[in-house]
């Protein structure tokens, strides 16, 4: 039976792609803060 975790190479490859996509998501999250290139606006 070929469960996803049975094949070590495939399992590692799955995790690698997932980490890349997770990194992409974090990059997009941080990008929204990079809009403030002059620093975060303080109290009004």
């Amino acid at each position, binding site marked *: 039976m*070929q469960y996803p975790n049975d094949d070590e190479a495939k399992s590692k490859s799955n995790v690698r792609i997932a980490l890349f996509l997770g990194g992409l998501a974090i990059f997009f*999250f941080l990008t929204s803060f990079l809009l403030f290139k002059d620093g975060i*606006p303080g109290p*009004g």
Partner: protein
Amino acid sequence: MSTTADHEAHHHGPPSGIGRWLFSTNHKDIGTMYLIFALVMLFIGGASAMYIRAELFLPGIQFLEPDFYNNMVTNHALIMVFGVVMPAAAGLANWMIPLMIGAPDMALPRLNNLSFWLLPAAGTMLILSTIIPFLPGGGTAINTGWTLYPPLSVQTGMAMDFAIFTLHILGISSILASINIVVTIFNMRAPGMTLMKMPIFVWAWLFTALLLIMVAPILAGGVTMLLFDRHFGTSFFDAAGGGDPVLFQHIFWFFGHPEVYVLLLPSIGVIGVVIPTFARKPLFGYKSLVGGMFILFTMGMMAWAHHQYTVGMAAGPTTWFMIITILISIPVGLILLNFMMTMWRGSMTFETPMLFSIAIVLMFSFAGVTGLMLAVVPADLEYHDSMFVVAHFHYALIPGALFGLYAAVFYWLPKWTGHMYDEKLGKLFFWWTTIGFNLTFFPQHFYGLAGMPRRIVDYNPAFADLNMLSSIGGFIFGLSHLLFLYIIVKTVKGGVAAGDKPWEGAQVGTPGLEWTVSSPPPFHSFETPPVVK
């Protein structure tokens, strides 16, 4: 790595008791939980819609505080978008993608469990956000609408913090589920199942998942800033401190517009498999449909500010957003043309999933036409924030997203349960819901154009007759869902055996491998990888 003993345990079928569901790593069980969650939320979100239509049945304030009305408007949108359509589509993805591509399960089954179980937590927080304003010191209800625009969202009571954390949790759930889906599609296909042999539903979900990975974090960033402005003394969106409230609108819609495609694409994928089945013809222009979805995916990320024409952007960007929005009608038209050409000279029959698919093509086209009207800047300045916009996006999202999900449920219910649903009741549900939907939203075009604003608890008595018609339609539409629930329960409990291939036309074109397994499929499908020739 799994041990031999683990494998033996797997052979014994599903675990018993609550543990089967709490600790499930089985894509079918998790898919079922997603679908049940979406169904429960459909009734909660639907109840808020019923409240809205009951309130608008007559001019004047009928029931509760205007703030509560605004809260219901907000909750209805948040629940329907994040609690119904997205989880239901994720449920379909969980159930069908591994079966279609011949994978034994999702690529990351434990992550799959986490993605689902974040949802009930988020749903509970959202419901709590409605209750909190009624408690001592609870502050005001969330009265911003789903867009959560500051400065109002900064001034709202603590219920807003619950909504913000709800969005964070939902965002994490969506991103994790999307990562899992992309990895499954790229890495878990059966030998011979090349990308261009995949059923169109799988392609549609690939684009959906990639979109979500890119835009859900942007919303998370925006609401995090909102949280900081509320509690930590920053002024991201406060002009007095050097921030800009319009920036939130840009951040929100950079997420919000692609989100529309996140809701639409899975349903496009569904009708991409349903129409060839009941027209008994291969999908017309498979490659062009994949290309059309890719163009939609790309252009969908460039058109966000057409939601904000009235904020006073410069002429250059305004023109850009107008042109891009109008150009989006080209890939959408291409996709609809593919579906119509698939039906052309097909040997068509009109089972419930096909009826929903045809209704989608017709009614979504109508939303496309009103969408073009709204894309034109000078016209939009007139239509903005009117009931015309409400009519437009309900014509886009109810046929475009919800009807696609209904088509999917009727199409795959025999596969999931092993029983055929009652076709007569299915057709009755189709006509009941379609008539109710049109009666609700078609009149809104007219009183919207005549000047009735959206998100308002009271209105000019001149609009009373059409509003009453809308409300009657709304109640008819809402009630039809009790029949939907009955059909599902009846089919799960029993009925005529469906057989492995309940639809004779499902084998044309680029069929998925779901038809090669039994109905219902075994707890562990594809124990040996199938080979696609």
